[in-house]
């Protein structure tokens, strides 16, 4: 059962640790760390410039990483994968570059009440800057996007619908294709925050019918500091550059410049080659397990964990049923604030997140100031689940024992 833990040096080095905060960031398998070290030790040079073999090798390895990652997310045209620092930068890229050039006063931008701040604030600020209006789709009491209301909100002024593949706070898996179709029916773009999608579910960008999909490497066994924006060629070609500098230019005149081809047009400056290679190794690692198996593993643990916690009097679980969630368990224990719960669990080696999960609009809608969140991944075990349940029971005991 713990065989997969052996792949993760951090878990090996912390034997008593029950890491249940993978929705915040995942641990990294040895294969990823080795791939990055190997690049620096054998092939490191600045790509795309040097007139020597080593630089050509670095360029090739960077290109190969892009192709590998594109394959993982089901994007056939790897030139349409732009590397970014992560989901946040990818969403800011679209909101700034596309929004800056296309949104007019009176236009409508639609987001949902389920969004992480990274897929909320860039659109809010775009709307403010352009005199457009931000419309926020309601969520149901069980933490889903209210599809009927969403469809009712869309109209000829709607320019973009921005929504998450999977909610980071609750784990809700959203019907991406259906939302994309509804957006396209009114001529709006469909932009999806996939930060919690790519780590946990098989993703095929080409089949989802989206205009753009943003994701982060560090939540899917890859390093921090790399992620991407997958988008249609039509969207990327229509967008002006996001940042200016080296690599992204073609000809620089005194008065004006022209831009490099995709994807380089959106990658100004020396690229993050080592992290791209690390992320490609993470894709290889996850495909080695199989994303269907990743999902099966998480779902089994999620079900057990939910049953174990609901057996404790006073526990409330948020979000839809387990089959409609990724490996996220968002809960509260009556009479014990999530931060106190997190401290008590931490003393038993159980790492969970407590707070608003960077989703304050959602927490307001659910009318809870904070929840505790346990999240599972490929290396999570039944021992982790047992430790979580025991820790919650202990917290209840401490707070009722006087």
């Amino acid at each position: 059962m713990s065989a997969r833990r052996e792949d993760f040096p951090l878990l090996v080095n912390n034997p008593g640790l029950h890491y249940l905060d993978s929705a915040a960031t995942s641990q990294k398998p040895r294969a990823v760390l080795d791939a990055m070290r190997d690049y620096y030790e054998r092939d490191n040079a600045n790509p795309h410039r040097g007139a020597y073999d080593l630089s050509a090798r670095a360029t090739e390895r960077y290109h190969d990483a892009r192709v590998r990652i594109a394959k993982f997310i089901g994007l056939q045209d790897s030139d349409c994968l732009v590397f970014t620092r992560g989901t946040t930068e990818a969403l800011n890229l679209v909101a700034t570059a596309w929004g800056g050039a296309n949104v007019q006063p009176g236009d409508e931008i639609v987001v949902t009440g389920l969004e992480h701040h990274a897929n909320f604030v860039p659109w809010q600020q775009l709307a403010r800057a352009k005199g457009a209006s931000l419309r926020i789709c309601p969520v149901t009491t069980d933490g889903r996007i209210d599809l009927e209301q969403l469809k009712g909100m869309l109209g000829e002024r709607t320019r973009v619908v921005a929504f998450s593949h999977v909610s980071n706070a609750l784990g809700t898996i959203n019907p991406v294709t259906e939302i994309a179709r509804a957006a396209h029916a009114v001529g709006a773009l469909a932009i999806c925050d996939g930060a919690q999608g790519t780590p946990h579910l098989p993703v095929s960008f080409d089949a989802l019918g989206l205009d753009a999909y943003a994701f982060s490497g560090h939540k899917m066994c890859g390093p921090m500091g790399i992620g991407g924006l997958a988008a249609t060629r039509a969207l990327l070609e229509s967008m002006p550059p996001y940042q200016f500098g080296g690599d992204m230019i073609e000809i620089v005149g005194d008065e004006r410049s022209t831009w490099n081809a995709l994807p380089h047009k959106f990658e100004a400056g020396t690229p993050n080659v080592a992290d791209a290679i690390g992320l490609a190794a993470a894709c290889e690692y996850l495909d080695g397990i199989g994303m269907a198996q990743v999902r099966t593993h998480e779902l089994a643990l999620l079900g057990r964990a939910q049953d174990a916690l609901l057996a404790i009097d006073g526990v409330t679980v948020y979000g839809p049923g387990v089959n409609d969630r990724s490996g996220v368990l968002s809960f509260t224990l009556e009479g014990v604030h999530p931060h106190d719960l997190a401290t008590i669990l931490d003393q038993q080696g159980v790492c969970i997140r407590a707070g608003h999960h960077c989703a304050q609009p959602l927490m307001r809608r659910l009318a809870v100031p904070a929840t505790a969140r346990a999240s599972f991944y490929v290396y999570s075990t039944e021992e982790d689940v047992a430790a979580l349940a025991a820790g919650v029971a202990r917290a209840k005991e401490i707070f009722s024992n006087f």
Partner: protein
Amino acid sequence: MSLDALYQEIILEHNRRPRNSREMTDATARVDQHNPLCGDELTLWVRLGDDGTLDDASFKASGCAISRASASLMTSAVKGKSRAEALELGEKFRELVTGKLDPVAAKGELGSLVALGGVSRFPQRVKCASMAWHALREALGDAG
């Protein structure tokens, strides 16, 4: 690190039945505090008399046991004290929760506030314990 040191009975009891947890209509100062990291919110009211005495202090808080108990203990401790005495107590409290003051030795000066001494061994929780005291400093015009 023992949880018993952090969650002493007095803390749990003040969390459950906080003292001075009410709005104040005749306050001379009101301060709203918000911790954006965890979403905790606290409003503090104080009434400073003409002679500079803290005649009354009250609060409303949504947050963890540590922050609520700290606000409850603080408002109880500073009532009737002069502005200078209250600020001095706040300085001692800061030393306590950052581990620079031994709870046993400080018992005479700090009274039941020493119950929060265990926080010094939980660095992530020092902010929770300090929130009410930050609000007090601001209310007394000594923020900084």
